C-alpha cells in the first residue's frame, strides 16, 4: 500500500528524521494560510501516488503567500498521470547545497533488508544506478544483528557525508531503518536528503510503501489509505476479499487463482482479444462471491463478454456451476458469458450449465478463442 509524501514525512518525523516544517492543504485558502504561518519561501507539492510530479508541473516554489495562492490554484485539481490532485503539501523551501539518496528496501533475491545510499541523489538517481553504479552503496542487513553501527559508518563514509554531519546522519539512517522495520515497509526512501544552506541535513521528499500482508497489524497505517487514488471497482473488490485490477480491454475475466488468472489474460491476448481486468475469485463456489465479482466486472462499461475460467481444485465443479447460475440471475445482464469449467465433478458441472442454457467448455484455449470472437462481434 502506498502512502503520500506528507504521510510518509509524518511517520519519519516520529523517528527523528529532519523533515521540513509543513502541512497538507486541500484548498487554496488552506495553502495560503500555511504559507503565511511558515513565513518563508515555500514549496507547493502535489500529493499523488505517482512519480514524476515535478516534471508534470506539480512541484512549485512560492516566494510568498500570494505566489503560494497562484501555485496552489494551478496544482490543486490538475491531473498527473490520470490522477486528480486533491491535496498539496506546503513546506518550507530549502536552499540545497548537496543532494543525497538514502533508502531502505527489501531485496527478495537475498531475502534481506538492504540499505541503499548515494552521494548523487535527486531525480537522477536511476540514471546514476545505470551509468555510475559504483556511486551507489548497498549494505545488506543481517536479521540477527539488525542495523549495526559499523554499517552506519560504512554508509556515511561511502556517501562522503561531511564529518560535522555524521552524528545527524547516523540518527537519520537509524530512524529510517527503524521506521522501515516497525511499519512493515517494503520501501522507505528519502530522495533527496540534502544539506541545506545552513549546513543542516533535511529530508526534502519521502516515500514509504507498506507490505499489504502486514496491514492487519497496523490499523493506524491502514487508515492512511487514499481511496481517491484507487479505482472504485478495485476498492469494492478489496472490501469483498477479491483480488481485482482494472485494465483497458473489453473481455472481463473471472478465474480462480492468481497464476491462472494471469495466464487467462495472456491467452485472451494471444488469441487477439484484450482483457478488461485481472480477477482472482479465489476458491469456493458461493453464489455471493460470483455475484460480487460479476458486479465489479460489469461496473466497467467497456466489458462486452465475460470469460469464466475455473479449474476447481478442491472446489466441486457442480457447486461452481450452481454458483455461477445463481450469481448471473442476481445481476441480470445481457453480456454474453463463456464458461470453462474443470475440476472434481466436471461432467456434472458442465451438464448443469448446459441445462441452464450456457455453453460449458472443458478446453481453456477453445473457450478463450470463443470469448475473443464474441467480444469482437459486439
Amino acid at each position, binding site marked *: 500500500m502506498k502512502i503520500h509524501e506528507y504521510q510518509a514525512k509524518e511517520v519519519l518525523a516520529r523517528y527523528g528524521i529532519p523533515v521540513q516544517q509543513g502541512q497538507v492543504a486541500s484548498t487554496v485558502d488552506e495553502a495560503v494560510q500555511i504559507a503565511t504561518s511558515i513565513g518563508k519561501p515555500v514549496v507547493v507539492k502535489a500529493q499523488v501516488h505517482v512519480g514524476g510530479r515535478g516534471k508534470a508541473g506539480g512541484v512549485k516554489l512560492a516566494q510568498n503567500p500570494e505566489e503560494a495562492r497562484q501555485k496552489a490554484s494551478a496544482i490543486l485539481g490538475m491531473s498527473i498521470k490520470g490522477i486528480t490532485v486533491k491535496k498539496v503539501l506546503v513546506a518550507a523551501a530549502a536552499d540545497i547545497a548537496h543532494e543525497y539518496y538514502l533508502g531502505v528496501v527489501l531485496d527478495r533475491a537475498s*531475502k534481506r533488508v538492504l540499505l541503499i545510499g548515494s552521494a548523487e541523489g535527486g531525480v537522477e538517481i536511476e540514471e546514476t544506478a545505470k551509468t555510475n553504479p559504483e556511486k551507489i552503496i548497498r549494505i545488506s542487513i543481517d536479521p540477527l544483528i539488525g542495523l549495526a553501527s559499523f554499517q552506519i559508518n560504512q554508509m556515511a563514509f561511502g556517501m562522503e557525508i561531511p564529518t560535522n554531519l555524521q552524528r545527524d546522519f547516523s540518527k537519520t539512517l537509524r530512524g529510517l531503518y527503524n521506521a522501515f522495520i516497525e511499519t512493515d515497509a517494503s520501501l522507505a526512501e528519502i530522495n533527496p536528503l540534502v544539506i541545506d544552506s545552513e549546513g543542516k541535513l533535511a529530508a526534502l521528499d519521502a516515500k514509504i510503501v507498506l507490505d499489504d500482508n502486514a496491514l*492487519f497489524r497496523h490499523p493506524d497505517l491502514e487508515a492512511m489509505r487514499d481511496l481517491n487514488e484507487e479505482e472504485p471497482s478495485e476498492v469494492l473488490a478489496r472490501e469483498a476479499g477479491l483480488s481485482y*485490477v482494472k485494465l483497458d480491454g473489453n473481455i472481463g475475466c473471472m478465474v480462480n487463482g492468481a497464476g*491462472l488468472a494471469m*495466464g487467462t*489474460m495472456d491467452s485472451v491476448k494471444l488469441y487477439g482479444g484484450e482483457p478488461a481486468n*485481472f480477477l482472482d475469485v479465489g476458491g469456493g463456489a458461493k453464489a455471493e462471491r460470483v455475484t460480487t465479482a460479476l458486479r465489479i466486472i460489469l461496473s466497467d462499461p467497456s466489458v462486452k463478454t465475460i470469460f469464466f475460467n475455473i*479449474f476447481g*481444485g478442491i472446489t466441486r465443479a457442480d457447486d461452481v456451476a450452481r454458483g455461477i447460475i445463481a450469481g448471473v440471475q442476481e445481476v441480470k445482464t445481457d453480456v454474453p458469458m463463456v464458461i470453462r469449467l474443470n475440476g472434481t465433478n466436471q461432467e456434472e458441472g458442465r451438464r448443469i450449465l448446459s441445462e441452464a442454457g450456457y455453453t460449458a467448455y472443458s478446453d481453456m484455449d477453445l473457450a478463450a478463442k470463443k470469448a475473443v470472437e464474441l467480444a469482437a462481434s459486439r
Partner: protein
Amino acid sequence: MSILVDKNTRLLVQGFTGREGTFHAQQMIDYGTVVVGGTTPGKGGTRHLDRPVYNTVREAMAEAIPNTSIIYVPAPYAADAIIEAADAGIPLIICITEGIPVMDMIKTCDFVKSKGARLIGPNCPGLITPGQAKVGIMPAYIHSPGKVGLVSKSGTLTYEVVNALTNAGMGQSTAIGIGGDPIIGTSFVDVLEMFENDPETEMVVLIGEIGGDAELRAADYIAAKMKKPVAAYIAGRTAPADRRMGHAGAIISSGDDTAAAKMAALSKAGAKVAEAPSEIPGLLQATMVRS
C-alpha cells in the same frame, strides 16, 4: 523415488483440527499419504480423523515421529508455526498459508536454514509424488505417476499444466508449488537441482510469473548445469507494471521482472518456452523425438 515426498513420508498437520486442516488432512489420508497426527494447541490428548492430536510439535516428535509437517495456520500465526516446526527438528516443512507479512519470512527462512531444514512456501499448494504421497491441497485426480518433474509459483495454473500432461500420457514424478510470495523457503534453482539429480525425473516443467528474478536465476542454472530438457510457461505477459497481480510476489518493479524478459532468458538458456499452458506437453514431446 522422486523428490522430497514419497511413501516414506510421515506427515504432521499443524492446524489439524481447524476447518482447512481437517478437510485437507482427510483428502491426504484418502490419497494414501501417511498422516501420523497433528497439532492444535489446547486439543492435545484428543483424537481427530482417527489420529492423535498434540499441543505442540515437540510433543508430536517424541511420540508420532513425523519427518514432514504441513501448516494450515492463519497468516498472523503462520511464521511462528514454521519456526516451531524447525525448532522441533522437522526436516521438511510445507506452509500453505497466504498473507504472511514479508518481514516475518526473512527471519523465519534464516532460522529454518540454521536448523538444516527445508521450507516449501509459504503461499503454496504443496507438493505431490503421484501414487505415493500428496502433501498439499492439489486435486489428486488430475495427477498420474511418470517422469516429468514440475515446479511452479502458482496453484491452479499448475493444475492446468498437470492436467494437460496427464491427458497427453505424460505422468509426473513430483509436482511442487514453491509459492507466490516474494520471500520463500525453496527456489526454482533448488528444485531444478533436485530434479536434475533425481533418476526418476527425465524432463522438467517450470511455471513462473512476473515479479522478482527467480526465473532469471533458473535460466542461469539451466544454461550452466542442466542436461535434462526443460519446458517453461511464464504468466503475466499482459500484466501492467507496478500493480500487484494477486500473489504478493507478482509485481513488476523493473525491466527484468517482466514475463517477456523471463521468457527471453529461459529461451536463451535452452528451455522451450510455451505461449499457452496447453503447449507444454507438445514442447516436451518434441525434445524426446530429437534425442
